[in-house]
């Protein structure tokens, strides 16, 4: 983080200037090395906070399910999902998720041997109604979680990006000797570098609890496979599954004899007998319909950040304990809060909106970090106009690329989305080669991004019409239009300013 100090420091400073200068050098090097990746992960992460709403936007004709689900409805959804899985020869593992964060009853089955996978949305009675079709949400989710690289490597890279972000927060704080004195200074005008530094530091310091939580939880989620892999070598004879089962609960055994589908409704009643306020969140059944099957039933009780505690059962209903995610040991509770704290899925829409604001702040911090470095070079008489344009293309090209992917998702096969996204990113870089400077490039990309967002809303309305659809579709359309206006607003001000100057001149 950049900052100001007195030109003639008389008092002994808490952080010695040499230490601060060394930290700043490290902070700059780290930020520059990872800037583009951190920016993409932060921006896509901000969008992912609302991924459930985006799924509803993409499929506004699917049933909306709200409120607590009864055991019978969950049982019906499991049975319906199993019947469909058998019909598609994919009855191996099943997952049902309730409407806790998504207002959807989601049913998935998967056979890792055949690769067959099916995802459905069920109605409030547990009947499968329509297959899930949310290619844009899947695309943004993939961009955030593994940058669309092969799954394991992508997640590890995103984990490393989380570590780099965490490291930047540490070095940023340690290179900020006037953290309190400047805590409220937000000044515009004068040097661009100091102006950007004010924004960078204010957003960084006051959002620190959020920034630390999302970078730490993201790093841990991304690196978990690597960490558990090493742990498995040290203590579990290289068996990662055994190490994971200590943390995530019992796994299915290899007993392949046919068995009845677990009575999930009875299991829910069993949990609710002990905890009447517990509500269904999800159920995972590994090796469904086989003698070795195991059920992980997620039930949430009020007053906890965790999305729910996990209760383990054998297929015949015999309890196998629980994960302690709500009231267990420290490690269990940390495990329970990782995902909701990372995505902001623990307090309804107010918290999601707050996470959206704070996520955007983190994205701006990343962007201004590089612009400060570029402005510093310019101030010192060593401008890097090429890099200024590249950074403008990377930063301001993202809204265009993501919005273009949203439009494409309405018309083309999901497999083309990554290509379209990359094509737009490269087109933005080509524009950087053509346009005279970063300021012009930024304005062009802001305009294109705004138009692409409006285009996404137009395409959505053209696809789904203005008839009776999920009201969330209209809310999301409204938010996208508002974002487009915000993106283009500085352009309108600039045009208005130019017009006033011209009028004054004439």
């Amino acid at each position: 983080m950049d900052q100001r100090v007195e030109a003639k420091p008389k008092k002994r400073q808490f952080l010695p200037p040499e230490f601060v200068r060394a930290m700043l050098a490290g902070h700059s090097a780290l930020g520059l090395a990872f800037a583009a990746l951190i920016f993409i992960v932060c921006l896509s992460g901000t969008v992912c906070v609302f991924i459930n709403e985006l799924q509803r936007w993409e499929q506004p004709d699917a049933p909306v399910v709200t409120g607590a689900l009864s055991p019978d409805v969950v049982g019906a959804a499991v049975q319906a999902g199993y019947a469909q899985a058998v019909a598609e020869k994919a009855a191996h593992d099943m997952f049902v998720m309730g409407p806790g964060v998504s207002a959807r009853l989601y049913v998935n089955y998967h056979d890792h041997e055949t690769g067959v996978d099916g995802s459905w949305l069920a109605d409030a009675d547990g009947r499968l109604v329509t297959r899930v079709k949310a290619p844009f949400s899947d695309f943004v989710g993939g961009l955030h979680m593994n940058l669309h690289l092969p799954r394991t490597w992508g997640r590890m890279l995103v984990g490393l990006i989380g570590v780099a972000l965490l490291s930047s927060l540490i070095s940023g704080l340690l290179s900020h000797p006037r953290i309190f004195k400047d805590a409220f200074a937000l000044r515009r005008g004068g040097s661009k570098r100091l102006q950007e530094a004010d924004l960078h530091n204010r957003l960084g310091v006051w959002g620190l609890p959020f920034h630390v939580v999302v970078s730490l939880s993201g790093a841990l989620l991304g690196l978990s496979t690597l960490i558990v892999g090493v742990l498995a070598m040290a203590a579990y004879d290289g068996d990662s599954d055994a190490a994971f089962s200590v943390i995530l609960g019992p796994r299915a055994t290899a007993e392949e004899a046919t068995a009845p589908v677990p009575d999930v409704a009875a299991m829910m009643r069993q949990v609710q007998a002990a905890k009447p306020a517990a509500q269904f969140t999800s159920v995972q059944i590994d090796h469904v319909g086989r003698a070795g099957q195991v059920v992980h039933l997620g039930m949430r009780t009020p007053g906890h950040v965790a999305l729910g505690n996990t209760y383990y059962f054998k297929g015949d209903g015999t309890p196998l304990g629980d994960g302690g995610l709500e009231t267990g040991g420290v490690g269990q509770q940390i495990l329970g809060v990782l995902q909701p704290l990372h995505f902001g899925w623990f307090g309804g829409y107010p918290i999601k909106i707050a996470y959206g604001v704070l996520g955007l702040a983190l994205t701006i911090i990343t962007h201004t970090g590089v612009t400060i470095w570029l402005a510093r070079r310019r101030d010192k008489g060593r401008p890097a106009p090429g890099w200024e344009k590249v950074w403008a293309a990377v930063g301001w090209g993202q809204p265009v690329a993501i919005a273009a992917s949203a439009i494409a998702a309405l018309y083309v096969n999901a497999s083309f989305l990554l290509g379209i996204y990359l094509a737009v990113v490269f087109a933005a870089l080509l524009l950087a080669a053509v346009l005279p400077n970063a300021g012009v490039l930024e304005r062009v990309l802001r305009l294109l991004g705004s138009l692409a967002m409006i285009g996404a809303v137009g395409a959505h309305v053209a696809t789904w019409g203005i008839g009776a659809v999920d009201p969330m579709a209209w809310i999301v359309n409204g938010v996208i239009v508002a974002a487009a206006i915000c993106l283009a607003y500085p352009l309108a001000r600039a045009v208005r300013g130019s017009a006033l100057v011209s009028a004054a001149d004439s």
Partner: protein
Amino acid sequence: MLRREITAGLEHLSTATVALVTTAGTLLLCGGIALLRLSWLGKRPRNPPYLIAGWILITGGIAAFDYAWDAEVGMAYGLIALSLVAYLVIAAGFDDRAHKSPRLLREVALEPEDRPANWPRAVAKALLSIVLAGIAAIGVGVAFAVAMPMGAHDRIVVGGLLVPILWGAGMAWTLSDAKLLRATLVLGSVSAVGYGIAFLPKALL
């Protein structure tokens, strides 16, 4: 969904009380942040009464959230509200002329240490901060997960959580420390101790 979240805070309080206490907590945070601003940015910098009162109000605000929503959820809500209130106070105090003020014109930005471009050194730093710091952090985390006298769940998760923290701290340190050999020796030693502890029980079997 909001109604369900409000219900979540209602085990011991009525809806109206939760709303009232939450509003009171938010106002306390606003007041606390405003007082800190007066202390740090006002004409009398570091005005101690404002400073102390500001922190007291902020503590009271977070305590109000804890009371309304229970400690676990209330702490999360309170810290999020604190960030947002601070952003609002900063935006409200936005200054379009400050860079022209004589006081601030006296101030200059501290420059990062001047380090001439040196590719072999840059590659070495990258290897240290990304690879060796990562190896050392994972070693310590796994050693914690294997050897700490805690429940299996706790030591594995806490050990796992240590990895990104130590890796991030190691990265920040190696990138700011100009002495490559020192960083290499320290990280190498930490790795040796960490993996030694982690794999020793297996080696002894």
